């Protein structure tokens, strides 16, 4: 089966090259036969990669330990489910998954456009096929998941199989981990589609909004997957890593945030191009950066470049990625320069107080955020080059920069939609912003006297309130205007209003999601924690909560041994819940892992971690965190999904002859 997978995967390489060549030739000659061949190439690439993925799954599930990848990432006692998802637990498997998704998207795009867009499709397929070729080289020649284990016997190398594998990294044995990587990967890889259309537009000179319209759904879907992938990563870190938080500005987290920042900027700036014919180069640059940052993110996640430059240089993946990203960047820039005359704006900015300038500020802030995160993430690498030491910038550095930028963006979320295109008069501004500002000020005063003294937190709550107000008013006012014109009742009017412009109102729903998530982020300002060494019967306090250790249980199964502390949690003498954190020790991988227990309410999370045994072995060490508003982050993410799906609905079209009039 390993041979089968390996050979099929190998075929991806010639097929990708064939697809790229025929696609390019089709673009130049406009011959239908060539384009058809390229299209079939895309389908064939997907087919062979799918078969290779199935072969690897078979090897994983049947525990064929003669395969290095299977032996390194699974063991016999691992539950079947985790054996299956081990496909993306390691380096080589994840690359295969990436490759597989690229081929899948390429096949989908080729199929979607089989009867249309003949002019640009050859170059679209060409661009994706080049990406496919690159990943096939990685998967086949550099990081092949079908590699067998060898040992030296005398002077010859011989294949052999181990008795049992090393097992799946315990940190990955969590439900969120099952969906987090594929979802994030779909987000990453999806960026290749708008990128390919942008490149095709640059090559053919068809630089109107055609390519933007064609890729609108792709861009939005990709963005949605990226957002959900990032939040799921946070959720996983929160419940699995056991340090009490969900975001630490870790290089790997930043890697996923970077393309998200540019993609979000793009979703906004694209509207200026559609309305004013401006920012054409900028939009191209954003789409290209999103793609490059996605590839960069994969590279960062899988290479370990930031933790150690040298480890990555040895793996062979690093240089390949560096060359690919470098070449893609240079070629994209050259193409942009080549078309710079055709990308001139059709109109100029007329007023500083207008919707378009709002979008412009929004983009400036996203750009700043991207540069800051990129700089902070790469700082260890840069410092190592110049000083020989890796100097890491910690979360405080990121927070100092990103909190103001984040709040400014949040503020724009409230202000932007209220500005008219071209020009907004002072009079209308007063009317739109008067009450919400007044409301926010009142809220700040109340919160201050209630005891909220943190400046950033006050600012964040005030802005959140302001934005929420403006969005709700947008919906209500819009519905009332419609009701007046159509005679529908309020709810019907509200529904029709949003269905007739799903992008606008889906966008507002996503803005609500952001407000909710920001309230969650702001909760961090009020976190508190305590640490205690307890034996059975001991108790301790955190804020208004009392904890009493009831029992310490030791047990084990085939996979791991575990210690569990069972505590009773009460408030004002009233029992609320039991909370039982656990510490596990996995036999196969010889690694410990913490299983936190979290008591969640809308208002706060009580988060308990069993850190280990005390030195004398009599007591256990338990760490308890009190994290306000964390659930808001997950609720916000859910609203974000709803908003994204809504924005993807086609606009409702009323019938010409009256209908809802």
């Amino acid at each position, binding site marked *: 089966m390993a041979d*089968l997978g390996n050979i099929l995967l190998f075929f991806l390489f*010639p097929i990708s090259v064939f697809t790229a060549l025929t696609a390019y030739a089709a673009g130049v000659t406009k011959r239908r036969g*060539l384009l058809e061949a390229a299209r079939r190439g895309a389908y064939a690439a997907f087919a062979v990669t799918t078969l290779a993925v199935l072969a690897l799954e078979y090897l994983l599930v049947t525990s064929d330990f003669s395969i290095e990848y299977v032996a390194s990432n699974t063991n016999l006692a691992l539950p079947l489910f985790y054996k299956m998802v081990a496909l993306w637990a390691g380096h080589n498997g994840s690359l295969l998954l990436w490759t597989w998704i690229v081929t899948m998207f390429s096949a989908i795009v080729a199929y979607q456009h089989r009867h249309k867009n*003949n*002019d640009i499709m050859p170059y679209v397929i060409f661009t994706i096929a080049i990406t496919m070729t690159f990943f096939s080289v990685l998967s086949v020649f550099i990081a092949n998941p079908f590699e067998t284990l060898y040992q030296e016997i005398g002077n010859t190398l011989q294949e052999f199989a181990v008795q049992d594998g090393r097992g799946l990294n315990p940190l990955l044995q969590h439900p969120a981990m099952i969906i987090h990587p594929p979802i994030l990967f779909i987000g990453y890889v999806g960026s290749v589609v708008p990128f390919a259309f942008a490149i095709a537009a640059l090559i053919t000179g068809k630089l109107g909004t055609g390519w933007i319209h064609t890729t609108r759904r792709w861009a939005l879907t990709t963005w949605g997957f990226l957002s959900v992938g990032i939040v799921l990563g946070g959720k996983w870190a929160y419940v699995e890593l056991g340090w009490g938080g969900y975001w630490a500005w870790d290089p790997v987290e930043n890697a996923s945030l970077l393309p998200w920042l540019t993609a979000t900027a793009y979703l906004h700036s694209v509207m200026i191009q559609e309305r004013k014919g401006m920012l054409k180069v900028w939009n191209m640059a954003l789409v290209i950066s999103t793609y490059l940052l996605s590839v960069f993110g994969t590279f960062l996640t899988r290479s370990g470049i930031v933790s150690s430059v040298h480890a990555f240089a040895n793996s062979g993946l690093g240089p390949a990625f560096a060359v690919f990203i470098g070449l893609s960047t240079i070629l994209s820039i050259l193409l942009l320069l080549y078309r710079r005359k055709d990308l001139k704006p059709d109109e100029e900015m007329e007023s500083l107080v207008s919707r378009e300038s709002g979008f412009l500020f929004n983009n400036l802030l996203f750009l700043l955020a991207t540069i800051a995160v990129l700089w902070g993430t790469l700082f260890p690498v840069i410092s190592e080059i110049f000083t020989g030491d890796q100097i890491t910038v910690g979360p405080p550095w990121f927070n100092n920069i990103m909190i103001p930028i984040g709040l400014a963006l949040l503020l724009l979320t409230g202000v932007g939609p209220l500005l008219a295109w071209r020009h907004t008069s002072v009079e209308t501004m007063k009317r739109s912003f008067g009450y919400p500002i007044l409301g926010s000020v009142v809220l700040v005063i109340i919160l201050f006297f209630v005891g909220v003294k943190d400046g950033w937190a006050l600012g964040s709550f005030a802005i959140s309130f302001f934005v929420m107000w403006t969005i709700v008013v947008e919906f209500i006012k819009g519905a009332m*205007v419609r009701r007046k014109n159509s005679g529908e009742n309020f709810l019907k009017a509200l529904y029709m209003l949003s269905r007739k412009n799903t992008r606008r109102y889906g966008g507002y729903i996503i803005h609500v999601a952001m407000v909710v998530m920001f309230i969650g982020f702001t909760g961090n300002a009020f976190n508190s924690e305590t640490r205690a060494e307890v034996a059975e019967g001991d108790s301790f306090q955190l804020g208004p909560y009392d904890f009493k250790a009831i029992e310490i249980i030791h047990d084990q199964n085939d996979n791991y041994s575990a210690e569990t502390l069972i505590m009773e949690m009460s408030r004002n003498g009233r029992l609320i819940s039991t909370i039982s954190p656990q510490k596990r020790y996995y036999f196969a991988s010889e690694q410990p892992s913490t299983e936190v227990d979290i008591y969640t309410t809308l208002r706060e999370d009580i988060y308990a971690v069993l850190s280990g045994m005390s030195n004398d072995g009599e007591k256990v060490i338990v760490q308890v965190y009190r994290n306000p508003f964390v659930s808001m982050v997950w609720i916000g993410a859910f609203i974000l999904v709803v908003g994204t799906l809504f924005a993807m609905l086609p606009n409702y079209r009323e019938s*010409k002859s009256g209908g809802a009039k």
Partner: protein
Amino acid sequence: MSYLAYLTGVAFLIWAIVPLFKKDSTWVSLYVEADELADRKQRVYGNIADLEFDFAMGRLSEKDFNSIRASFLSEAGRVIEKIEGQKTAGLMDRIQNDLSNLGKKTKAKKKIKKQSNCPSCGSENLPEAKFCMKCGKELS
């Protein structure tokens, strides 16, 4: 087992190569300028729709609304004239009509005109073409 894999791979490659040997034809590119004009028309219409929405939501004064709207309308007129290559009568009425039907269902779904293939040489031509762009024969 590995023979099977080789066979599958080769089969896929051959399947992809086959169209290269079929009787071939080319397609005709749509003009970049026509593309741009259609784009501009769509933009102006979108702008007017947004402007009307903004005005209804009370985001701009009546004076601003009227002057901006007038400039959009004349831009729409210019674009349409350019698309059609001539001065057209009743232009403003047509634009008003287009605008009031914006975002509404068109009764009969527009038939997607297929590009027509030349009966003698097989080349693809634009739907409105009367003669083949490649060999000059009349298209039926």
